[in-house]
């Protein structure tokens, strides 16, 4: 076969092979929207999910509320809440429900929230975490260790029981095998 028809055949085969379109599509079409940073925040919150981005944003919101106590009046009775990882939707609602800031503070708060948005985009590093004292943690370790030792002792006891049951003396003694030669 001549090389040229071969190449044509190969090209046809390659071009006609099915490559799923989804492979080449950009992952997030919303990137191309020209909306303001509020929707950016929404996206970030949704992407971040239930993790400490919400923890951090929650803290920012809490501090903001503490600085503006009169705003707390219009909010859900659950506030002030303890800063635990809230659901992303919860935080989203919360962030959106906050009334627009006064001009003076708007810039500074806006900047810090913007920084947060940037930070989460740049570095998706939000650990879900827990807040305990090490004193409590050490006590818990001690209790768990005692539980483990008790269970190990219990297991040893059960295994010993099972193995002793398996060694029952046989009722029939095996007769020794004698070779008797009558020579």
């Amino acid at each position, binding site marked *: *076969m001549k090389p040229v028809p*071969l190449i044509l*055949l*190969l090209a046809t*085969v*390659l071009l006609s*092979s099915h490559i799923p379109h989804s492979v080449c599509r950009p992952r997030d079409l919303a990137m191309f929207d020209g909306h303001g940073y509020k929707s950016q925040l929404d996206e970030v919150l949704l992407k971040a999910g*239930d993790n*400490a981005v919400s*923890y951090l944003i929650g803290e920012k919101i809490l501090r903001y509320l503490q600085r503006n106590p009169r705003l707390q009046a219009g909010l859900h009775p659950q506030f002030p809440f303890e800063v*635990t*990882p809230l*659901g992303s*939707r919860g935080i989203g609602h919360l962030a959106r429900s906050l009334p627009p800031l006064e001009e003076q503070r708007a810039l500074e708060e806006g900047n810090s929230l913007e920084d947060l948005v940037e930070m989460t985009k740049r570095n*998706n*590093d939000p*650990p*879900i*975490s*827990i*807040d*305990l004292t*090490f004193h409590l*943690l*050490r006590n*818990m*370790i*001690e*209790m*768990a*260790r005692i*539980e*483990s030792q008790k*269970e*190990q002792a219990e*297991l040893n006891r*059960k*295994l010993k029981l099972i193995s002793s049951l398996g060694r029952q003396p046989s009722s029939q003694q095996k007769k020794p095998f004698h070779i008797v030669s009558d020579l």
Partner: protein
Amino acid sequence: MEGTFREHLFFIVLCLSVLKGDTRYIEENDITPEGLYALLNSELKREIPETLIYSRPLRCLDMVAVEGQFTFTADRPQLSCAAFFIAEPNQVISVEYDSVDIDCRGGDFIKVFDGWVMKGEKFPSSQDHALPLMERYVDYCDSGTVRRTVWSSQNVAMLFFRIHTAGSSFTLTVRKPINPFPCNIISQTPEGSFTMIAELSLGHLNDFPIKRSIPGCAGAGDFVELLGGNGMDPSKMFPVADLCYNFNGPAQMKIGCDNTVVRMVSSGKFVNRVAFQYRLLDRQELQRIKVNSVEDFCFTG
């Protein structure tokens, strides 16, 4: 010519099979930790009689140091729960989901974390752990498979879970397979002794004493450091002492912090070994013992 025609035909067949995708996937032939542990602990795959499997309910805040089956049932919505797992220094933790009845779409989750994290600080630190932070969280809701086993890289692991509806539950089986290469350890006991050995080099054994002319260990590839801090993350702790030369006599130090870490870094060129003992001090001793105590940066009185 027939010879060339055959070659061309084979070439076309090869291209077709490439397009079909048979050769597009790279097989994972390297030993993954899961594979290694499964290999080393094949005896665990034997059916253990049910009476011998330890079983108890899991609490919303729990610490588990024992192998067994743990079931969490939500009697009311529980939005922030965590269970700590800790094993012996030469073991790792494996968590297997036996049955899970939660509403992933409703915001419920169960995440296994490879290490311990408290107040945002994690152990082992990012610089001492092979995986990036996001990969250390394994979310049950992300996995497509019904039954999954997650292994930790060291003797500690954690579970974070949230359940919105009363009545939802899940059951886990926790095992503690042996770790042939322990590296990052949290000790279960308030006192003890350890010897850390890094025999990473496959080459020769260097036995000459290393004397440093420069004070401090900056730039040394092999060193031991003693750290103290009130958080979980060793990379955020204060260095109390560091050693980068052979040292034979016993030396004692008092660290007035919540947590103390002995950290050995090895370049791989030498066989390194450090042996140490430690003891938790009570308040009285902490105030009384003044020997070799670096200014008490943690202990505020």
